[in-house]
């Protein structure tokens, strides 16, 4: 895994979401194959876009020869920010190869990707039912199967427990996932996945195997901390995209399109596995079961899988940079109350939620169902230093706001949000830059002035003190300045 690509993915994911970032990183040929594969992928891409891009797709979906590029530019409102928003959306669609620009100048047209538009139209006209021709085998009729399907509450609890185990493994507080295949038949190594995604470093994994399990957070990278604060939906995409990149280079497209289809399947309903899915797809099912996205069971030598809420939330729609839009499952179960005095009450008994709160609050009390902490300058700045963004902290406490405070707008006191942002800005007050100090200039003469003006011309001057005739120059420009100063000196000496 090239670190450069990781960095690029991370930087785009902040605005785009992990899924869009992942699609952007795919080769054009792979993207075209994906769009041609099934209506589900077209639908999933549509949902993953931001609201303006969605509207552009809808407008172009039924227009075969595309729209005039200059007409498209007129779609937005009159403000400069509107034009920028439209441009951003257009650029994003072009990156995803959903639209292509044809022609130049006067004849420039924006055309929707043919395979994409075909599949999208098919999905819209048939209304999301029976989109897969081979999907007719409904496993629900079989009484034996129906009896084995867990009810909704059990399924949710199962998915939640699995996912928390996974996150605890990341923080190093649990080792439920460190022995691959110990509990379930999956062959997915979660530790390796975290490492590959750049969320943990390899050394801690080794340390942990050496028995030092309580070495809390030692190997979690800045991305790892940021990851913890994201919505479950984002987290799943980060891991899944990494998973696809790692495991199946050859059949990536079929694996993705299967994944995308899963996201539209109804949670709590059994789908047949044996005899319906290909070998690759069955492998994917096993791995996803390990992550808690699916629940599998066996009836009469035939395997069935049931998507959990984690899986169905995946294509829920675009999640912006704030955590307010969240999968419906999590929205109703917030647990955090933040008071204007910076005290944080979290009604939870989940270890992972407490671990996350510990990241940016000072833990005061812990009762069986309650965590009480304090947002302090120190605790927040510690988290910021570990790589978390102020917006992520604000987004997290807002997304997990308790039902009682959710009724209020804003659900988190704005003074607290602002203070967190101010603390973050506090840390940016000082900026260190390497430099070189030039001093001991002759007290008389124009030499000092000439050097200052040369440094200024190059934009390398950082500080000057005319009284004591000293200046500092950017270290990067030092070599260049040395030659200039030498030349100046010679010139002055000659005079």
């Amino acid at each position, binding site marked *: 895994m090239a670190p450069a690509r990781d960095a690029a993915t991370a930087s785009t994911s902040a605005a785009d979401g992990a899924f869009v970032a992942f699609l952007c990183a795919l080769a054009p040929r792979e993207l075209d194959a994906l769009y041609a594969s099934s209506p589900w992928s077209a*639908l999933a891409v*549509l*949902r993953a876009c931001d*609201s*303006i891009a*969605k*509207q552009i797709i*809808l*407008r172009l*979906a*039924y*227009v075969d020869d595309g729209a005039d590029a200059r007409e498209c530019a*007129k*779609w*937005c*409102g009159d403000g400069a*920010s*509107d034009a920028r*928003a*439209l441009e951003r959306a257009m650029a994003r669609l072009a990156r995803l190869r959903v639209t292509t620009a044809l022609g130049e100048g006067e004849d420039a047209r924006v055309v929707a990707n043919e395979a994409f538009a075909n599949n*999208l139209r098919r*999905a*819209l*006209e048939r*209304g*999301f039912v029976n989109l897969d021709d081979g999907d007719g085998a409904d496993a629900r009729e079989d009484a034996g199967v129906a009896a084995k399907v867990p009810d*909704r509450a059990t399924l949710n609890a199962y998915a939640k427990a699995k996912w928390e185990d996974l996150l605890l493994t990341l923080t190093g507080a649990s080792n439920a996932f460190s022995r691959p295949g110990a509990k379930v038949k999956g062959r997915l190594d979660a530790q390796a996945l975290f490492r590959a995604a750049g969320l943990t470093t390899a050394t801690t994994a080794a340390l942990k195997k050496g028995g030092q399990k309580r070495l809390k957070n030692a190997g979690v990278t800045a991305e790892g901390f940021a990851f913890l604060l994201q919505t479950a939906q984002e987290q799943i995409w980060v891991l899944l995209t990494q998973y696809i990149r790692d495991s199946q280079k050859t059949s990536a497209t079929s694996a993705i399109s299967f994944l995308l289809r899963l996201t539209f399947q*109804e949670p*709590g*309903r059994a789908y047949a596995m044996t005899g319906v899915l290909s070998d690759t797809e069955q492998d994917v099912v096993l791995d996803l079961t390990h992550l808690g996205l699916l629940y599998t069971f066996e009836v009469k030598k035939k395997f069935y899988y049931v998507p959990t809420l984690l899986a*169905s*939330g995946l*294509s*829920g*729609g*675009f*999640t*912006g*940079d*704030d955590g*307010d*839009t969240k999968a*419906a499952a999590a*929205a*109703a179960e*917030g647990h955090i109350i933040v008071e204007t005095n910076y005290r944080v009450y979290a009604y939870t008994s989940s270890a992972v939620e407490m671990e996350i709160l510990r990241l940016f609050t000072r833990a005061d009390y812990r009762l069986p169902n309650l965590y009480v902490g304090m947002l302090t300058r120190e605790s927040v700045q510690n988290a910021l230093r570990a790589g978390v963004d102020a917006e992520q902290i604000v987004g997290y406490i807002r997304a997990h706001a308790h*039902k009682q405070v*959710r*009724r209020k707008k*804003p659900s988190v006191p*704005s003074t607290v*949000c*602002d203070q967190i*942002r101010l603390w973050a800005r506090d840390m940016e007050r000082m900026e260190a830059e390497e430099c070189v100090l030039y001093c001991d200039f002759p007290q008389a003469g124009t030499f000092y002035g000439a050097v200052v003006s040369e440094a200024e011309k190059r934009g390398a001057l950082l500080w000057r003190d005319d009284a004591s005739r000293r200046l500092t120059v950017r270290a990067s420009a030092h070599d260049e300045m040395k030659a200039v100063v030498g030349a100046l000196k010679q010139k002055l000496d000659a005079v």
Partner: protein
Amino acid sequence: MAAREDDVADDKSLLVVLVETNPRYWAASEGKGDGTAAANGLSSVLEATTVFLNSFFALNQQNRAAVIAVHDDGCHYLYTSPLELNAGDASASATGKKRTKTATPSSRAAMSSPFAGALSLALCYCNRAQTLETAAGLRVRPRILCLQASQDNPTDYISMMNAIFSAQRQSIPIDAFALGEHDLPFLQQAAHITRGAYVKPTHGAGLLQYLLSTAALDMRSRSHLKLPAARGVDFRASCFCHKRPVSVGFVCSVCLSIFCERRSSCDTCGADFAADAQVTSVPSA
């Protein structure tokens, strides 16, 4: 920084679609009105609406919709999305209720449909949905889409305006589509007042494209993308006495009722104008 608090990426929408299904109108207008959307018949309108609704659902998993049929004998819910998000068994109600209605003959030869009633029904539905979703800790942004083909019913003027103003108060935009050959002044005003879009498709066969490019806009993208400009909104009020559209009328100085002719006392509030000429002639709007 304070602005960020309100900057909620919120495109969960509730869309209430009012479709005119009045059999009297559709039977009488079959094939008439060249090039309008209504000329292709009710089934083509419903087809476009269905695809449009599918695309609306495709935009966001949490989008909710309700379809109300505006019939000759009243308004009927054709479809409603399940509202309470964590309702115990979503699968049972997910498909909604499909109704089949047979036209009941009524003595009144109703060529126009009760759109004022339908709007009120839609507003009530929006209100109920908002209350329910707020209790569940979510926010939905409702909007209303009217697909009307027949002409306005002048007697509906007052109730229509009341519905429009309550929509404006709740900041629910009303998008209006005039499917027939005539402009619809009531809906023009509705779209204008509630900041929705008024569209009169010139190519009836392309109704779906019109729907996709204007009615699909959610509240968030409405702040960035332009809606079709309203041209020549008919602001004329209808008089309270004969329900005729008037451009110059008489307005009661007490209750602001509008009359098309001079009268000695106000029909609505009973104010007496006989003593001196208190009723002044003003151009309305």
